[in-house]
């Protein structure tokens, strides 16, 4: 059948080749390709799911960031409002304190004025009383003693009246 060494036979080689090519074509189209396509489709499905999940995660992270920004803005607004209200409270307190001080000063001032008036009134009353006492004493002396004695007594009474007056002033 063949003169080549090792019993090499081209006809049989071609038959082996035909056999293998048919096998290759059938295995490729019937088994290999469908299984590979299934695996690639599944991989694509999972990749799409992964991408979708990643997109969702990114979107949720963006939403979270937005909410965090809003929260931080709200917090800063709250702190500003707190500061403002604290300032208003301090301002009110200062104004109330000032008003209380003014009221106290006014009360003190009025009390002082009242005291001064009262003092003047007492002094004038005391002076009137003294002069009345002096008049009474003078009348009595004039009726009971001589003129010289009377004059001395009059002087004593004046001294006494002055001494009392100075005590009152003190």
């Amino acid at each position, binding site marked *: 059948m063949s003169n080549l060494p090792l019993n090499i036979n081209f006809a049989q080689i071609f038959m082996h*080749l035909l056999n293998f090519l048919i*096998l290759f074509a059938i*295995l490729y189209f019937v088994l290999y390709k469908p299984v590979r396509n299934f695996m690639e489709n599944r991989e694509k499905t999972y990749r799409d799911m992964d991408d979708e999940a990643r997109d969702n995660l990114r979107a949720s992270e963006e939403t979270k960031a937005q909410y965090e920004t809003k929260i931080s803005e709200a917090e800063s607004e709250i702190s500003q409002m707190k500061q403002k209200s604290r300032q208003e409270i301090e301002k009110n307190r200062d104004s109330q304190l000032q008003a209380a001080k003014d009221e106290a000063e006014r009360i003190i001032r009025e009390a002082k004025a009242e005291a001064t008036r009262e003092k003047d009134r007492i002094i004038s009353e005391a002076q009137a009383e003294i002069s009345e006492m002096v008049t009474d004493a003078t009348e009595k002396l004039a009726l009971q003693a001589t003129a010289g004695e009377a004059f001395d007594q009059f002087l004593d009474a004046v001294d006494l009246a002055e001494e009392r007056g100075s005590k009152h002033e003190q």
Partner: protein
Amino acid sequence: MDKKQKKTMLIIFGVIAAVLLAGIFLTSGNGGEEESVQVVMRDAVLHDVNKVNFLGMEVNPGLVAGFVTSGILIIAAILIRIFVIPKFTMVPGKFQMVLETLVGYFTNLGKTNSPHLNRLMGGYIFAAGAYIFTGTMLELFGIQVVTTGGHSVSMPAPLSDINGAIMMGCTSYLFILTGGIAAHGLKGILKTLKEFSLPISMSFRLFGALLSGALVTELVYYYTALSYVVPVIVGVLFTCLHALIQAYVLTMLVSIFYGEVSEPDVPKLKTKKVKAVKA
């Protein structure tokens, strides 16, 4: 294990031992009385004695083994295509997992060794790997064919036939050549022709490896006394191992060379000559 089970086991072992002993003593002590071991070995290498009639032609048993291997694989592929693949699920079952592992292995082998061009190559190495593995495993079953001389011989691995091995080596080389042409056009032919020793080395590597397995198996089965127990270790393990190893080696070599010839050219960097500035 209770007493009844022990008794059953002992009976089974006794029957097996009796059958084996009967086989050893009742069969002819020398075995292979029609051919000497030298003739068997020579025929395993050259296939010049035992021929098989195929469509009126006298062919080597290896060619018939090739057709049987292809037949088994094609029927299995069609059955899987009809009954299994349409029922594939997103979470694979056991058989789907096996199929996906096989296809995924060859696809990844192609992608790893030939990242630029690998769609068809994955299919080629899948088919070549399946053919080599299944054909070699066919030796284990000892399927008998009748020769033109009226003898019965067990079917060898298709690639232990030199014609089958040459076909596989040359086809793989031509496939690598198509990769070179697909990637670089006519320049790809030159790239592939540089590896002119590849078809010879691939053919004879396959032939030598598979022939050695066939020879050892023939030798073991030639003597009747060696046909008991020894084939379990020598026949089964040796056949399984070299079926796996040869399928792996050829597919790996094809993918590596295919990747090499289909690799895109790296553009040469233009170096500007800097004129010496005169001081």
